[in-house]
């Protein structure tokens, strides 16, 4: 037990020093010094509860993705059938219960229709995206597969995360953390942000921009009552519009979406000094826009943002340059915000804030200062008590504790984990475990001496007998820590991470390191008696 060959000592020291050194950048940062830039700088992140900032949890409705997917499918099917050679005539296109169904005018077209639909049904990936069934030889029913839907939701969330990142970057905040959580959630954490309103407004805007033709045949009384003519949809005007409270019927299909933009910027219209957003389509979008405006001169089209009509200008002449100006009773701020949203792309799904936490930065800095002071006083008291009780062994224990704290910080820094308030509870518990391990060992050595064992045997037995309880206690807590990490949510995980790391280092420093030091001392000075 007390035999430490040189190679073993070298390893133990190497592990200890590397882990402890990794803590230095964090300590430098906490005490306000700069860490040399040429050196690697793993750092423990401070949770928002300690450092101040905003935490926002966003959630998407997967049903929305499904609905959008169905709409796209309908459009694809219509254009596929219309462009087939010769054209396949279909009717009674209906979407209900998440299915798309249509009737072939001529049942002999079934095989051709099926063949044309195959690429859509099979999708581009490895999984089949839709199930195609035929009822009565003439009605084709397309049902989304579970796998296809899940992939679509997952892709939507991935691009939503990307869009969120772009928008937050546009705000110029420092070091935001944006991660997907679960199937339909995104966590956004921005340290140091005092007022999250702007951020929330920006993330709350889906920025789905659509240009759709106004259905001029709709009866105003029907529109007011919310009854749309076949093939049309009713949209309300936005709240800030002069037409707020009224609605328009627009053609459901054949519009353009503002997805293919190369740029968007806020500006002021030279004609009437109104705030506007200038957008620039890419080549493909520009061509579509030119076609739409050419074919519909002198008809009004509605500019729709997130399901609300911004304005419905008349198309006076074909717009061929690929650029357009959107007016819609903007303020300078809302025009700028829309420009940011459009530049970063539309969110493929609406995101709702379901949890929000903000901690003022003053509070964070104050907490850290007070916490460090309290820890310092506590540490000194512990050191005094340990050395007064166990003499030389107490000194070893204290040095081990010191390395223990450094190692926990160092490992957390390398693993890039975050220290939160609950994490501090974990810290307290592991330090407690380390202290207890030392106390157990030292008390046991004392006991073995009392029973009359010789020095070496007493130390050896002390470590051996105490280790059993130490390992059992730490493994038990370790198991608890792992389960807490697996099942718990945010704060509980913050606790569990520190606990799991800390139990390792506690056992390592309190049992293994001190034993190495005690063994070295015994070998060198061969004492006849122990002052313990």
């Amino acid at each position, binding site marked *: 037990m007390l035999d430490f060959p040189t190679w073993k000592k070298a390893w133990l020291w190497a592990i200890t020093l590397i882990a402890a050194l990794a803590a230095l950048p964090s300590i430098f940062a906490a005490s306000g010094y700069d860490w040399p830039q040429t050196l690697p700088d793993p750092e423990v992140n401070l949770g928002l509860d300690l450092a101040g900032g905003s935490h926002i949890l966003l959630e998407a409705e997967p049903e929305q993705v499904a609905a959008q997917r169905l709409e796209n499918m309908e459009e694809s099917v219509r254009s596929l059938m219309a462009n087939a050679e010769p054209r396949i005539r279909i009717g009674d296109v209906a979407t209900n219960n998440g299915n798309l169904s249509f009737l072939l005018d001529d049942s002999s077209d079934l095989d051709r229709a099926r063949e044309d639909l195959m690429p859509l049904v099979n999708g581009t990936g490895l999984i089949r995206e839709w199930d195609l069934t035929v009822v009565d030889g003439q009605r084709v029913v397309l049902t989304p597969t579970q796998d296809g839907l899940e992939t679509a939701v997952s892709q939507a969330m991935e691009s939503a995360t990307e869009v969120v990142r772009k928008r937050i970057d546009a705000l110029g905040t420092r070091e935001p953390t944006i991660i997907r959580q679960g199937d339909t959630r995104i966590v956004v954490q921005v340290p140091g942000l005092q007022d999250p309103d702007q951020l929330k407004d920006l993330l709350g805007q889906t920025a789905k921009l659509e240009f759709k033709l106004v259905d001029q045949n709709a009866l105003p009384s029907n529109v007011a009552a919310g009854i749309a003519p076949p093939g049309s949809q009713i949209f309300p005007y936005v709240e800030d519009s002069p037409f707020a409270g009224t609605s328009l019927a627009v053609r459901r299909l054949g519009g353009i979406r503002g997805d293919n933009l190369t740029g968007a910027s806020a500006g002021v219209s030279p004609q009437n000094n109104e705030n506007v957003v200038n957008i620039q389509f890419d080549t493909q979008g520009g061509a579509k826009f030119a076609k739409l405006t050419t074919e519909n001169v002198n008809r009004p089209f509605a500019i729709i943002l997130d399901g609300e009509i911004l304005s419905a200008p008349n198309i006076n002449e074909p717009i061929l340059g690929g650029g357009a100006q959107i007016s819609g009773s903007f303020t300078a701020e809302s025009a700028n915000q829309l420009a940011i949203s459009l530049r970063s792309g539309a969110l493929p799904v609406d995101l709702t804030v379901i949890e929000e936490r903000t901690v003022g930065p003053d509070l964070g800095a104050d907490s850290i200062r007070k*916490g460090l002071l309290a820890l310092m006083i506590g540490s000194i008291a512990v050191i005094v008590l340990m050395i007064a009780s166990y003499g030389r062994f107490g000194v070893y224990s204290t040095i081990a504790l010191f390395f223990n704290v450094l190692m926990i910080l160092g490992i957390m820094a390398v693993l890039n984990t975050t220290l939160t308030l609950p994490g501090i509870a974990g810290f307290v518990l592991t330090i407690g475990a380390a202290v207890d391990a030392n106390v157990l060992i030292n008390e046991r050595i004392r006991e073995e001496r009392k029973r009359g064992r010789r020095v070496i045997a007493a130390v050896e037995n002390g470590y051996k007998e105490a280790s059993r309880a130490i390992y059992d*206690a730490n493994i038990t807590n370790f198991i608890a820590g792992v389960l807490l990490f*697996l099942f718990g949510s945010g704060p509980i995980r913050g606790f569990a991470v520190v606990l799991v790391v800390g139990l390792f280092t506690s056992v390592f420093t309190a049992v293994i390191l001190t034993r190495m030091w005690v063994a070295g001392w015994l070998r060198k000075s061969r004492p006849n008696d122990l002052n313990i």
Partner: protein
Amino acid sequence: MKLLKLVPDDTNIKFLKVRWPFFIISVLLMIGSWGLVLTQGLNYGVDFAGGQEIRATFTQTEEAPIPELRETVSALPNVGDPVIQRFGAANEVSIRVKLPPEAESDPEYAAEMTRQITDALRDGHPDVRIDGVDSVSGKVSGEFREDAVLALLAAMLAVAIYIWIRFEWQFGAGALFALFHDVSITLGLFSLFQWEFSLQIIAAILAIIGYSLNDTIVVYDRIRENLKKYRKMHLPDLLNLSINETLARTVMTSLTLLVALLPLLFIGPESLFGLVIAITMGLFIGTYSSIYTAAPILIWLGVTSNSFVPEETEADKQERKARGQA
């Protein structure tokens, strides 16, 4: 140098002589705790109840004008019945309001509510500083509740299984009961004093469980050792001996932790107060439960030395008989 000894050598305190009264008190406390939790309930923070919490400090005022705040905030539209209480120092308050169901679908609702309340606070109190806002929807708070309960139960069960494997089933059951005891009494205290029960407190309860478990295992380890050593000893005496033998360690560890915790409690950040007070209480509850619930339960569950002595094989038996005849 004369070293400090907190506990004299060879103590022989008859801890287990009074095991019945203490155990009955423990059980009564547990029943009382659950009674409180079930009738009076816990003062759930927004983490578990959903809603919105605004924390503010009156930087130039000694004591926050809580009654006045209660009046101004209650008068605001849609606020309902706000919970306004001290939070940490005397000039710090937390204001908690519930969010109506409409808030779930209207993203602006919660933000508007915050604006309303903070404006009302700043109005007439120029020294007020908003320290933080938490807004948790009912959906998320429900998940937090489920996760917390699930995590706690899973961890406790796994721990009991490990102890059962390393020791004996009686020890696993005893440790589980002691943990249940500690959690119950902590919950009872939170219910009695109506301290705010948040996710942070769950972290504190976890720390209490961890500490209590550590303590229980140290005592159990000594019992296991003594069961092997003194096979004929009367079980209550053996438990008493084990507790006495580990007494110096128990006192020393508890005291060391206490001197580390007290500065955190008195001069540490206010935000840590709830956490630290819970851990400090847990220190006492955990030590107590290791001695008065975890240990005596072994007597009632009938632990014997045989549990740790290897079964006598046929060969051993022959040998013993042969020796006996010789």
